[in-house]
């Protein structure tokens, strides 16, 4: 049971890492197009950092569940 949870959380950690990457690309694309609102950069940066942190948390939890 714990192994199942661990596997799901490991996949979620990957998904959140990918999420962070997509958000970063989104920000860059909007800025390149010149359409990004001024406030967006700060918000997206915060989301990216949170996604990275969350991915690390989930990865750590998956490892703990596997032990």
């Amino acid at each position, binding site marked *: 049971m714990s192994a199942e949870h661990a596997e799901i*959380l490991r996949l979620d950690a990957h998904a959140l890492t990918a999420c962070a990457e997509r958000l970063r690309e*989104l920000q860059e694309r909007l800025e390149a197009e010149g359409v990004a609102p001024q406030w*967006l950069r700060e*918000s*997206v940066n915060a989301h990216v950092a949170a*996604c990275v942190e*969350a991915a690390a948390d989930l990865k750590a939890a998956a490892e*703990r569940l596997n032990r």
Partner: protein
Amino acid sequence: MNGKADPVAESLRGAARELVDAAITIQEAAAHATAALTDGALLRTLPRSPRAAHRAYRALLRATTNGRGLGYAFTGGGPATAVAKIGAMAGAESLAVHVLATSLRLRIAAVALDHPELTGDPMLTRLIGAAAADRDLEAVRALRALVKDRGAVRALSQLAPVFGEVLALRALLDENPLNDATAWLIATGRGFATADPITGMSNRAIAVRDTGEGAARRIDLPPEESARLSGRGSLLGFLANIGVIGTTGRILLQSVRGPDGVLRHVLQAPGMRAGRPDTDSPQDLLGAFSSAVLASSPYSRALAKAVADYGLPQGAELALVGHSAGGAAIMNLAQDAEFCARHTVTHAVSIGAPVDFKRPADPRTWVASVTNQHDIIPTLDGQGAGNCFDLHPDWYVVDYSDATHLFPTCHRIDRYLANLADDLPEAHDHIDERLAPYRGPVVRTQAYLLFDDPPDPEGFPFLSVPTHTVDGPAGPVELPIRCQDGGALTAYFAADPGAADALLKGTGFGPAVRVAGRALVAVHTAENRRTSSGGYHELHLGVVVPGPWPRRSLLLWPDLLRDAGRRRSGGFLVGSAVDTEAARAVAPLVWGDEPYLTPLGFRLTRRHAHVSVGDVLTLRGRLGPGLPVNDRDLVGYTRAAGTALRSCVRTHGPARLHPVPLLRLAVAPGSAHPLAGRLRDLGLDGARALLCLSATTRRTLVDAAVAVPSP
């Protein structure tokens, strides 16, 4: 006019959509972490390896509560939901919520590009900014200032293009856990807003209060309305028809012969009926709400009943056109699989209606939705101008903005019609082109009045009486005469006793009832708006008598209050007038006298009366204070061909007794009419009524006068 063509706005909407995807991914991860944390299996490993389990718990707890990661991320139902709600009340938010909020802010930014008035207006900017920044107090103050400066209607109109986004933002970020699910639905475009985004009160809980199997009754349109209906099928013609029948609880079904000679049919459904929120009509406020929220509502079920009554052949082609609540109702009909199995619903055209989450049962049904971005009504499902999802790529959607920016003006059917006719030629031409099979002469029209439930027959049970036909002077007459809708005024006067007794002399009914030494005389006048003998007015002048066989013990006033069946006293008729030939022809049967035929005017309100009888008299003035009573029956006596006759008007309805009326009778100066002379003889010219009884709505039954043994 503008829509969503701005490429920058489209780019921002695309980004908002991507953020929604990210938020959903994050939310799913949070749900999985919560599930692992609350799984009993992990708990069971504690005794075997307490240290490892303890570390796993700590890691999961960190993952679901780390403010720099997933945030306060308990989710997924069960005990986690309760914990999540407690967290929401404490203001703890998750990463998914923050990402979704950014998506909503991007949606607002996209709408602002199409609507520069949103960012150019400091008051609107202040409100939107406060809502987006989760500054509740500031948001309330900003809204209050906006309403104070512009009025509620203008404030709402100006906010309309981003109304859904602002509400969803506030709901996501506030401390009320009850509105979170609705905020998610609005922000992710995954479904109809299930609750009020402010309070969290369930929409469904309110909508299900609108019950009823739906019913439709055929009605004839007044000639002036029929004359204004379009004679040919077209988009603008159908919308104009909806405007003609108005929000009156009625709908229209028409048959048109298409260019290919095939007979097709069009249902036209207007919006909400004004008035009380919950009436017996499915077009009331509750009906509009349930039509929008539920997949089937009394309104759509009543529409189905109307179509069934109209008598379409199996598989007949049918186009549905609806405005506002009517738009939601026709979409409910279009998504009714049983209905679509009986009829081929080819088109569903919704104007100014919240239909984003309706789905036609027949995939061949072509759907068009036309909405003004300043119209609040179509945004009630949570999706408005800021919508970043392509919810129905196969629909023809026209979401536009005009310069009016004023709700409810922009919601009116005539406004939509004018916009389509003058400002949206491309949309108008496209919809009309798709409606080409229906563009032909109208060959049949039938209006229906809709109900939540089948109504009682009109007048039931009071007017549900056996009828019989008798020969009258002008042909057969059906009795009793049944009046479904009428009004009446009975005024009592103190008259010259000598003149009254003279009128009764030889009739066997004298003497007249006395009040302070004067004779009591009643003037009864009635407006019979709808009866089994047509509409007519009448006036009767009666000297009040104790009855054919006077009793010493009779107490007059209590007797006058008795039902006709137990009343002895009545008015001995000394003059009557009616204003239609049909009423005059039947009068000898029901009253036993020959009334004068003359124009009669009758205006009666709760406060005032104004009755005029040709060039004979006027009875007018304030009624004064009134006591609520039931309308009283009327008993009249006459003598015809040596026989005493008793006639009755049985009444049903509310009335008011006015003990101190300021009502005055005036005989027309110089009138040579016999009735005028009689009133003068009785001393009633200029007389003020002693008391009167008024009934603005009532039903009556009038049967044939009955001979009573001569006194």
